[in-house]
């Protein structure tokens, strides 16, 4: 499978591609010019045909999402989710650092297509330098007339505001993101109502991930069918797979949707470091239930991973070798969810708290067989009960790790006695 286009990463190896002049030289902002000559509905159609599924983790078809925005209500908003926080994910960061204009161009086209005049880029607070670079890029784009009032002479204006987060993973969840922009604690909202109906400040809102929007210029230039034909039916285009952990070549790999997980790890990321063997993989960040080494012969697309009880999510592939202690892994997983739980709903708030205490006890070697059973039971009690996917994901992940690696946990009890 070596014959696929580089859509997102086409400028990654070019020095200073974040400079607008370099971007324009390499064909940048041509898609915007084309888009402004099309009807907004036409653009939405192309994106629907492209089968572009959200790249943030939920995988909702972008064109369909845009279609939910009611025609009459104004204002409407676009929120760009640049709050990349799922452990193991670093693909959006690469786009923001190396090719921010691709994102900006995608934002302008999207706003034109949906009739939006104000966009917020929610970028995680820790990335202050990247936020500054993004702001400079927007100013550059404004100076050239690609952003701001009457873009390229058309009756379409767009204001883009970079809004920094302040250290809360939960703000990557779309409704918590909106709460945060509104100046409140990042507490996810109950859905329905959905953002398309009642979103930012109560108005219809589209929320899209950085990578999702970065695909839009190419889709406009080459058409939706072209994009859909890369990838698998219903899940078009390429994806940025972020591979980390015990691999020879950690990094971002742009590959067609549906590339085999095994291939991504062994062919592209160089296989397991130092000649070790594979033990386990998180295929989509730590929110994706862990896979054992004999479960990786699976196509990396949303449906295939769902079928085997896991998920593709943010396509952050975390590779663990034979030396990895799954108890340590469980400890890190639980520590993360416990730290990032917003605390609103009972099962997540209390569940992550109990799990943290129990797993800490395990790490100190003070646990018993009962404790393993109780950890599993507690995790299972969280699944499907929580207000947002964080708690559900924590429960499912912990339950899966215990289920698939129970022997290791039981053995460790014997060792520590």
């Amino acid at each position, binding site marked *: 499978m070596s014959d696929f286009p580089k859509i997102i990463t086409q400028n990654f190896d070019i020095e200073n591609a974040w400079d607008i002049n370099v971007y324009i030289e390499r064909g940048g902002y041509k898609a915007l010019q084309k888009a402004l000559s099309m009807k907004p509905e036409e653009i939405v159609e192309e994106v629907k045909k492209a089968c572009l599924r959200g790249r943030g983790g939920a995988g909702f078809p972008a064109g369909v999402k845009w279609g939910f925005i009611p025609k009459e209500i104004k204002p409407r908003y676009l929120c760009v989710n640049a709050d990349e926080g799922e452990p193991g994910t670093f693909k959006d960061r690469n786009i923001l650092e190396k090719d921010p204009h691709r994102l900006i161009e995608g934002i302008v086209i999207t706003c034109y297509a949906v009739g939006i005049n104000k966009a917020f880029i929610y970028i995680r607070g820790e990335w202050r330098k990247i936020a500054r670079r993004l702001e400079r890029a927007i100013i550059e784009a404004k100076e050239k007339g690609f952003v701001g009032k009457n873009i390229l002479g058309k009756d379409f204006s767009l204001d883009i505001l970079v809004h920094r987060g302040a250290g*809360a993973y939960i703000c990557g969840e779309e409704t918590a993101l909106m709460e945060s922009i509104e100046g409140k*604690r990042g507490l996810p909202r*109950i859905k329905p109502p959905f953002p398309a109906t009642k979103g930012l400040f109560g108005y219809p809102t589209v929320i899209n991930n950085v990578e999702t929007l970065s695909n839009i210029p190419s889709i406009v230039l080459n058409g939706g069918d072209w994009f859909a034909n890369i990838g698998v039916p219903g899940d078009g285009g390429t994806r940025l797979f972020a591979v980390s952990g015990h691999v020879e070549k950690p990094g971002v790999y742009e590959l067609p949707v549906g590339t085999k997980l095994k291939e991504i790890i062994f062919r592209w990321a160089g296989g397991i470091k130092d000649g070790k063997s594979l033990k386990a993989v998180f295929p989509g960040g730590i929110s994706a239930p862990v896979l054992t080494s004999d479960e990786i012969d699976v196509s990396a697309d949303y449906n295939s991973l769902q079928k085997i009880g896991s998920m593709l999510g943010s396509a952050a592939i975390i590779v663990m070798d034979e030396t990895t202690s799954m108890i340590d892994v469980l400890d890190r997983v639980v520590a993360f969810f*416990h*730290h*990032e*739980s*917003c*605390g*609103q*709903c*009972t*099962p997540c*708030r*209390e*569940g*992550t*708290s*109990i799990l*943290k*205490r*129990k797993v800490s*006890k395990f790490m100190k070697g003070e646990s018993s067989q*009962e*404790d393993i*059973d*109780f950890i599993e039971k507690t995790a299972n*009690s969280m699944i*499907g*009960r*929580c*207000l947002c996917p964080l708690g559900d994901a924590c429960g499912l992940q912990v339950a899966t790790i215990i289920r698939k690696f129970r022997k290791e946990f039981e053995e460790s009890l014997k060792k520590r006695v």
Partner: protein
Amino acid sequence: MPFLIIDGKEIEVKKGTTILEAAKLAGIEIPHFCYHPGLKPAGTCRMCLVEISGNPKLQTACTTEVQDGMVVNTNSPAVKKAREEVLSFLLYDHPLDCPICDKAGECLLQKNYNEHGSTEIPVKEEMIRREKKVFISERLILDRERCVLCTRCVRFLEEITGTRELLVSKRGDNSEIDIFQGIPVNNLYSGNLVDICPVGAITDLDFRFKARVWFLKEIPSVCPLCGRGCNIFIDVKGEFFPSLSKERIFRIRPRYSEINKYWICDIGRYKLAELDKNRIANPILLEPNGVREVSFEEALMSFSHYFKEPDKVAILSSYHLTNEENQLIKMIFYDKMGIKNIGYTGFRDGKGDNILLVSDRNPNRKGVKKLWGDDIEKRTQEVFQLMRRGNFNFLLLIGDEILEDENVFLSVRETFTVWILSRYNELYHNVRVILPMRNFFEKEGTFTNIDGIDQSFSSALPPFKNVPSLKDIISQISSLSGIKIEKELCERS
């Protein structure tokens, strides 16, 4: 109108009704913590999860609107399990305070656990310890260990009073209810926080450790401290009250009505019990050479002759009397005994707000106006004028509340004054005769609120040391004055 099938029951509801509300209408109770009918639903406690056909995930009944054709099951095995597990989560770090917690007997955690909890004992670690006595206002105490973070208190102060003093600090299991330092809860509706807290996390000093709720009896009544007429419950000793406490009024709580919905203000809640303090038990004669308690007969004898000259008699009554008491005053004093100089007064206006409190601090001004005419205030001013000119030989004051009017005291010293009231106060030394009567808690009757709504209430307490009712006193006065009106009195009772 959407049509819902819930646990096999069919019900049609208005668009926008949630499953939980629809269930209530169908007579089905769905357990909850964070839901409160007076607040917007939050959906965070997860106790009200129910099964909706066609939906693989359980949904919160309090936030889900009924769609036409929805089929809901509130008792499936999955729902039962979810409830058990949510309760187990809440109980894991909940202190076993029931033996000393005021909320026992009214606690949603107790109730929900009783009805839906599992008896499996968890493998427990040490409970997270938190502060148990945080003053969030002068009289409200927060116990953070008991708190289940339903956020009803925070939402009440956002949605109802708009004062926003409480906040949830931090996140995850470090979340705690807190105030901004130096800015405690400070509004007229703070007492409602105790009612809405589903557990014993917020308690008030007023009631703390005073009584177990199952030894109390609740009497439905109406608050007499302003013209709104909020409906209340008065908690008094029940049949099996164990101790010899002298306390008679234990608690005032809101009672739902369209007038006040689920709330009452702190004035009614905390000041009402004072009406039962400093009671007068017997008639008192205040003479130059001393003060002495006398019998009713002796007291009445000291002034009944004044009624022979009704033109020289003035009566000042109170806007706190019931419609029935006012009718009696009109029928006996005005119609039968020919006393025309009758005026009404009461507490001065206070500050009102746009929530419940009305500036008119009297419960029955409307009722007085309905009976005597809208010009009663003008006629009262005329009576005051005549009082100042020394027109009267005898002045009869009825009610504790008239003491606020300065006009009264300008003339009281020069005229023979009799005051019928229920409580001692520092101003009674200016009168000649004191006759005790029953207070608000000991009578029944009707008030007409500022919107013209008549509200009846019954008595909450037996009379203090057998003091008579106003009706008794008036009938004794009238018979001593030689007026036979037993027939009318019988009709009135």
